[in-house]
């Protein structure tokens, strides 16, 4: 029988109280316990970046945290980017318009990394965008349209 803990986390401004196994990753907790499946689980050892979310406002790998470690913290996942389910965040809009995704598996992580990057940077060079996204692997696009999408998002997102 696994050891468990009761935790309270705030995800996209909603508080959740759950009892979790101490060895559940934060990514699995979000997907299985809370039902927020926008955070994708790829490599599960911190290489692919698909599970990127914001922990207290800073991007982290949710596969490299235990759910118990998020107790008392605030998370923002890809579901929290847009204002409502019926609209897209300007970054999502830019990815849509510039074909910045194909299969879409890596996209949640790339959106969260881009969100953090563009919050800090204005008018970044293509080189800076590529470096910022170096921790997010996409196997479909070849990255060209992702870089274009980030450049468009930089123009389109008033921040």
């Amino acid at each position, binding site marked *: 029988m*696994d*050891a468990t*803990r009761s935790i309270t986390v705030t995800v996209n401004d909603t508080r959740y109280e759950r009892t979790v*196994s*101490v*060895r*559940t*990753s934060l990514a*699995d907790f979000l997907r299985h316990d809370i039902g927020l499946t926008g955070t994708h689980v790829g490599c*599960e*050892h*911190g290489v692919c*970046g698909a599970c*990127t979310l914001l*922990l207290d406002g*800073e*991007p*982290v*790998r949710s*596969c*490299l*945290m*235990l759910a*118990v*470690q998020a107790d008392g913290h605030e998370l923002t996942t890809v579901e929290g980017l847009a204002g409502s389910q019926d609209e897209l965040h300007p970054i999502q809009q830019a990815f849509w318009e510039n074909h910045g995704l194909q299969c879409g598996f890596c996209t949640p992580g790339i959106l969260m*990394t881009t969100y*953090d990057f563009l919050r800090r940077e204005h008018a970044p060079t293509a080189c800076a965008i590529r*470096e*910022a996204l*170096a*921790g997010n692997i996409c196997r479909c696009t070849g990255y060209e349209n992702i870089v274009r999408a980030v450049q468009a998002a930089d123009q389109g997102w008033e921040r």
Partner: protein
Amino acid sequence: MKPAPFDYFDPTTVEETLGLLGEFGDEAKLLAGGQSLLPMLNLRLARPSKLVDINGVTALAHLGTDGDDLLIGALTRQRTLEDADLPDGAWSVLPRALHHVGHVHIRNRGTVGGSIAHADPAAELPAASCALGARMVIRGPSGEREVPAEAFFRGYFTTAVGPDELLTAIRVPPWPTRSGAAFVEVARRHGDFAQVGVAAAVAIGDEGEVRRAGIAVAGVATEPVIAVAVVDGLVGQQPAAALVEQLAAEFAAGLTPPADLHGTAEYRRQLVRHLLPRAVDQSVRAALT
């Protein structure tokens, strides 16, 4: 659910942590930033039966000067040190090295002490701490001791920290004002482990000569290698390119780096021959500006 089962402890003080380590010994594994340990747990390369999460030991998350030293608490996040307002001199090898450590997501969680205690032979912070002549502050049941960086790293993932001990801080000595630093590396992709990384700090004297130097190389042995002969050959001399290149070539010839699918031993020696002079040159330029 990826890791094998473990009992989870989250102490909030150093004393409590040492108590748990004393009780469980080798069965326990310390969890700091988790950017190396959690992959190992997820892949079940490590299966500790007790996990001691020290993220709540907030007394270890400090960064500041202690007298003339820079004192970095072991739980300081790598991103915090990277963004810290350090002077441009020798100490800047730390943020320069951190730029190569994983990605921003990794550095947001990864800790300075975690990387040093993990002692991956290709890691940047161990090499940078060796270049600076840092001292590792270790707490154990019998009190506190300090171990110089050159005696701290003892082979693959092995350090001077005992099973009942805890690395609590990294103490970096002062360097002369007119000093500079560089960290250069070659990796397959930005943020990957270094094939070879070179940390350098150089202080320049009134005549333009090398007054003091520290150079350490990651990725070429089971632990960071301090380039003692290069440093000895440079101190007191003008840092002319020909001299540095000759010293680097002699130093590289004596290395027996690992060979893997990313590169042969000779390729890594070749990288040392190129990267070490570049690191010294950048450090000297930084010292002079």
